[in-house]
């Protein structure tokens, strides 16, 4: 699906150049630096987009305690984004910063999985999305701790502690709501069925993933599937929820092909830097 040009700024990259950023030739596709840049953006874009999505709950969660807990998770994810995209910008070596990558790229340059750009839905839907993501995120970071690149291993170790708590929390709430009232059970089962086709994308690798795995920089996506399935089966079982049989997975996010939802999200997230390029506070 081709995306339309950004309506507010005809050429965001020209604006960035005018602000003294970028300008050098982009990294060559298929080069080790471009592969690493891509892998790091995929990590940082997942945490950025999910972090923004969860932050939409701020002030709207069903109770104060959940409101602040969700905000904490969102802030953890945004913090991890700064590290991943900061390293991506460093690897790219074109004078861009984590902020440039977050606020001045357009939808087709984002490489998050489609799951994290799904709209929040109700509270149960948000938690189910969080759980399906956390169950992948935790083993992913564990594997990244063994990366040949010490910078990646360090970020993964720091983020891993935060994500261990995210998973504990989302799993617990999925169980409580799934195994709760008839109403909460029905909502969680509905959320599971709606989100299930978006859960598999994280495990489908492409040529970039293969080269990164070969170089010992990041794990092959499909290597994380057994652990994810073990966690998901255990928690869904305890939650009395049943996962659909199908393994069909919507794909494209990791390659920059997104659903319409990402554009709306970016519109909100990026408008200030788009309207007032280089604005600081």
């Amino acid at each position, binding site marked *: 699906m081709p995306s339309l040009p950004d309506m507010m700024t005809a050429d965001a990259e020209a604006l960035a150049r005018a602000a003294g950023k970028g300008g050098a030739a982009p990294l060559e596709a298929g080069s080790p630096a471009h592969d690493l840049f891509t892998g790091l953006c995929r990590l940082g874009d997942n945490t950025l987009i999910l972090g923004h999505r969860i932050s939409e709950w701020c002030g709207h969660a069903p109770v104060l305690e959940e409101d602040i807990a969700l905000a904490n998770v969102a802030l953890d994810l945004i913090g991890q984004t700064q590290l991943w995209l900061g390293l991506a910008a460093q690897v790219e070596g074109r004078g861009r910063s984590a902020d440039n990558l977050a606020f001045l790229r357009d939808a087709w340059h984002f490489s998050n999985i489609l799951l994290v750009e799904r709209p929040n839905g109700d509270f149960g839907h948000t938690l189910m999305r969080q759980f399906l993501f956390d169950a992948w995120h935790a083993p992913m970071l564990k594997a990244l701790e063994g990366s040949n690149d010490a910078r990646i291993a360090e970020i993964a170790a720091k983020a891993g502690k935060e994500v261990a708590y995210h998973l504990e*929390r989302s799993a617990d709430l999925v169980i409580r709501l799934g195994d709760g009232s008839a109403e909460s059970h029905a909502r969680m089962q509905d959320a599971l069925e709606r989100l299930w086709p978006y859960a598999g994308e994280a495990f489908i690798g492409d040529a970039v993933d293969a080269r990164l795995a070969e170089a010992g920089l990041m794990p092959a996506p499909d290597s994380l599937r057994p652990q994810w399935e073990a966690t998901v089966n255990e928690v869904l079982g305890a939650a009395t929820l049943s996962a659909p049989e199908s393994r069909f997975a919507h794909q494209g996010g990791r390659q920059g092909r997104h659903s319409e939802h990402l554009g709306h999200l970016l519109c909100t997230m990026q408008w200030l830097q788009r309207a007032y390029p280089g604005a600081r506070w």
Partner: protein
Amino acid sequence: MSSEWPLWEVFIRGQHGLNHRHVGSLHAPDAQMAIRNARDVYTRRNEGVSIWVVRSGDITASSPSEKGPLFDPANSKVYRHPTFFDIPDEVGHM
């Protein structure tokens, strides 16, 4: 919704060796969730190494109307403070 959940009092120990201190209260359906919520509400800025929660209803408190009989008699007992007494020099540092 939160009115259906009981209220819990939260106590946080800031550092090893210090006592747990009352920091506030929150709502939660059970003790485990109260601990989780306390972690998210009260230890966001690295305040704690340990959390206690107790159902607010399980706390027995003194009544403000008994304040006089309970506390006034201690007002005039200055000799209950160690500083009231002169320590002989020979005792040295205590």
